[in-house]
């Protein structure tokens, strides 16, 4: 990926250019529709998160293995869908089979009695860690 899109700085292969453009002045539609889409960049990744995501240390490698679990702990919303369990049983690779729509859901601020706090509620009720 030796070519940079002049509009959005995306790294592209030269062969991905539009047929109308030439090698010296390549244009691309895959990234930003030739400059039509211009969005604010994502902000610089916080230092501590960057270390976890890039370091070769054992703890960081383990973190990346479990990144989806860490994310679930910190997320405000949870995933919802009508899952069909009939195909998830048995051997072979795991497949996630749902009917209808997939959605994100958010829960109320207070706990339902008898349940542990989860998702958003963790930020409110987990008083062990006071910040």
């Amino acid at each position, binding site marked *: *990926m030796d070519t*940079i899109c002049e509009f*959005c*700085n*995306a*790294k592209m292969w030269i062969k991905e250019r539009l047929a109308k453009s030439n090698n010296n002045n390549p244009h691309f539609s*895959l*990234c*930003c*529709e030739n400059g*039509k*889409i*211009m*969005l*604010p*960049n*994502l*902000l*610089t*990744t*916080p230092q*501590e*998160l*960057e270390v*976890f*995501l*890039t370091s*070769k240390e054992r*703890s960081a490698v*383990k*973190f*990346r293995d*479990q*990144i989806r*679990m*860490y*994310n679930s*702990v*910190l*997320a*405000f*919303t*949870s*995933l*919802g869908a009508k899952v069909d369990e009939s195909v998830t049983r048995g051997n072979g690779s795991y497949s996630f089979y749902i009917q209808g729509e*997939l*959605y*994100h*859901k*958010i*829960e*109320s*601020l*207070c706990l339902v009695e008898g349940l542990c706090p989860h998702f*958003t509620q963790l*930020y*409110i*009720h987990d008083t062990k*860690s006071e*910040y």
Partner: protein
Amino acid sequence: MSLLDPTMLDQLLTMMYNINPYVKVFKMARDMMATKGAPMDLKLHLIASRTKDARRYNVPMADEVTALMVRDGFEAIDKCDVVIAQQAGPFQRISELHVKYMALHYPLLFPYDEDGWHPNIPFNGVVLQDADVDLDEDHAKEFEHHRKHHNVTMAEFYGYRLQHQNIDGNALLWGERLRQQYIMDAYVVVEQNRLRYVRLNKKKLRGDLYQGLQDIVPTCDNNVVAIGHRIILSSSFIGGPRHMVHNYQDAMAIYRWACCPDMFVTFTCNPQWPEIKKTLLLGQQP
């Protein structure tokens, strides 16, 4: 399954408390609830529409994304707004049109709660009506001419976000499995919206003309409801059965025109190629 590392989690939580606007608001809510004599029905209002031009670089502030309300403030104005009450039943669904749909679900990829897609992101060069952007008439006219729509579509948005750009905010690229989950989620959102379009625009797509439905109507007296409705995915719906048949027939037409094929070529890609390795970011491996 091994447990998560508590010290690491603690560091991440500290980071979230320092930079994430939502966490700040939730902390505020907690403090309010802890105060003695505080009103019991507190509501958190997650605002979907942004008043500022979202194309420009701006960090969402806590008071811009949420409003903390006591008792019956206003209900959701926009249908994508989310109002979290203190006790509002088991859960509430978030619309995928909400600007924070992804940011709320992937705090590790979007630690600052960066904006996601929403229906009103204009193309570059298209001028917002009430924005104080310099008018570039020629540019705007050119867009009028070429494009039927002036806003960035969902697929275009996610396509842009997933590019490997030369910028400093690379959490989305380093996310590994979380990135894959994000891509899957984005795909589902886009697909659901395409399907919804087909379902809600039956009249425009003239689904009733497809064989069967019109013939049945005269025969079954007044009981039309019993027929149900049939949603046909047109051949332009990529992935649908008509799309497959359409492509298959195209291929057969080419075959008839150009005679028997001599070769069947498939391409594979070796992730160990030096060209690919060269472009990986620090810490990434094929």
